[in-house]
């Protein structure tokens, strides 16, 4: 591809790199991604949990709540994470819990992120009366007592599954994301490069997707992570009052079970530490991964 170009005069450009006209930004991002320890470590931990959650249950007992062991055993070679006061294997529960937690977090987080981004971007970019109306809707949903609404919605459902639960969590948790994204989009859309894109005849949605969103990609990913964490915690809250999924378990449910049956007072630390560490590790490594992604996609952070 460089053959067709006239060679630059070496006298005027001593160390200018050969210009690559048909550039390959994706390959370049990959190059920096593979050399970013934060991204690799974060991604590694998240993937490890994800694979455990997806594949683990196939090697364990089909029912995580089955009483298959002596109660209250500390961690040992046979029962890796110990057992509960009811003789349930905590490792089995943990693995199933990761699966449910990822499902709730991803589904609830994505539903909320899609609504929040759509409303935030349109309100911030369009401004004017569109902004006013969308802002009004956002504020109304924001002041709704979310948990109370969820109680009512979920209580009316005949059968409760993890999917339905995540969907409702997503429907109610987007407003702060919409507000945050709106303010970012508002400030970015007043920049000259957005005007220049409009002068190039680029359509509105393309400007939002290609010019505004990439500038706040790490912000958007952060939003997704926080919505993920929020959905996991909201699900734990629902689980706690008995409105969780009627079958199976989740990391939130495990912690609440542990608290409910006095694991703290009895010193059964292996009951609540694994799910707590699990949630912290997943959300924490997503955060580290986000910092890494920011460094990969923002060329200014890359070089210095």
């Amino acid at each position, binding site marked *: 591809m460089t053959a067709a170009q006239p060679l630059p005069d070496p006298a*005027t450009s001593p160390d200018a790199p050969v210009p690559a006209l048909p550039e390959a930004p994706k390959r370049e991002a990959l190059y920096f991604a593979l050399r970013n320890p934060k991204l690799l470590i974060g991604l590694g931990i998240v993937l490890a949990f994800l694979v455990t959650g997806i594949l683990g249950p196939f090697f364990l007992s089909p029912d995580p709540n089955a009483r298959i062991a002596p109660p209250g055993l500390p961690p040992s070679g046979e029962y890796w994470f110990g057992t509960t006061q009811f003789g349930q294997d905590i490792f089995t529960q943990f693995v199933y819990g990761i699966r449910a937690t990822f499902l709730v977090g991803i589904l609830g987080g994505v539903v909320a992120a899609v609504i929040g981004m759509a409303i935030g971007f349109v309100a911030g970019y369009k401004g004017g009366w569109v902004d006013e109306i969308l802002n009004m809707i956002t504020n109304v949903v924001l002041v709704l007592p979310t948990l109370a609404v969820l109680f009512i919605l979920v209580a009316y459902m005949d059968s409760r599954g993890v999917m339905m639960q995540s969907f409702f969590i997503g429907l109610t948790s987007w407003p702060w994301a919409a507000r945050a994204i709106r303010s970012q989009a508002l400030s970015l859309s007043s920049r000259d490069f957005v005007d220049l894109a409009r*002068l190039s005849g680029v359509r509105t949605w393309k400007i939002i997707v290609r010019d505004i969103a990439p500038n706040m990609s790490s912000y958007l990913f952060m939003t997704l992570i926080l919505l993920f964490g929020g959905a996991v915690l909201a699900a734990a809250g629902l689980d706690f009052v008995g409105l969780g999924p009627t079958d199976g378990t989740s990391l939130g449910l495990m912690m609440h079970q542990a608290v409910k049956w006095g694991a703290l007072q009895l010193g059964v630390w292996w009951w609540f530490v694994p799910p707590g560490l699990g949630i912290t590790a997943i959300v924490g490594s997503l955060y580290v991964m986000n910092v890494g992604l920011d460094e990969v996609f923002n060329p200014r952070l890359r070089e210095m």
Partner: protein
Amino acid sequence: MLKFDRVSKVYRVGSFGGDELTAVRDADFEVRPGEVVSLIGESGSGKSTLGKMALRIASVSRGAITCDGTDISTLRGNRRLKEYYRRVQGVFQDPFSSYNPIFKADRVFAVIRSEYHRGVSDAEWREKVRSALDVVRLDPAQVLGKYPHQLSGGQLQRLLIARALLLDIDYLVADEVISMLDASTRIDVLNLLADLKARGMGILFITHDLALGNYISDQTVILHKGSIVERGGTEKVFGDPLHPYTRKLLASVPQFHKKWEEVEAELRARELADTGSRDYHLSTAQEVPGDLVEASEDHFVQPFVPGVRA
């Protein structure tokens, strides 16, 4: 011809948009092919607003901007807008904010290609880019494949002009394109604009710098608080300024060997000669609402009543 026909811009301000703020009032002038029109005014005089309206980034509140007879506010739909932008383009003041910082600078070319030149082959496109860069006197090896923060303001600004050239435009709105460049690159960009003019391009040159306006333009429009106070051929407006605001503006260009007190005294003496009254005072001059009057051929001025010294 890019014609501004009594163009006004009114913003609704205050709670529930109850108050009006007029940014531009009845601006009436035109940009002809092969002609540079400088739009000169202080900050907040509405000069950038006029440029944005011509580029359809801001809407026109009253009046109309026409391009060869077509009212540009009637251009609806992406296709017709693109036809307009193929002929009229803009370059903005801040070269660093005109580029999306996370993409390479030559992405502005890629966008033009994907929006306007889809059928063009790679080799053909490279040749097109190379010849556009040639016009703005940039070495492709030095500017292509770089990020905006790796290039200088002058290089970025010339890249934007090259971007406009890829569209074979007839009119260019240059909004303070030189203000943020350092002195050595200024003259390059200025001469580049003169080149483009010689090729038949009409340029709306927005600036607050009188010397630049005088250097490059055929027509000069002086804007004050949203209204045109004086306009006409550059040598007429600069050679024989009639409106007190224009005079003050011209006098306030710093000179090597004169202090401001002397300049002020000269202004006063000239007013005295013109009006025969000692009571005449610049800062209280009242503008008379209404159209500009033709003082001489190709020289229009806003009527005013000399102010009375308090």
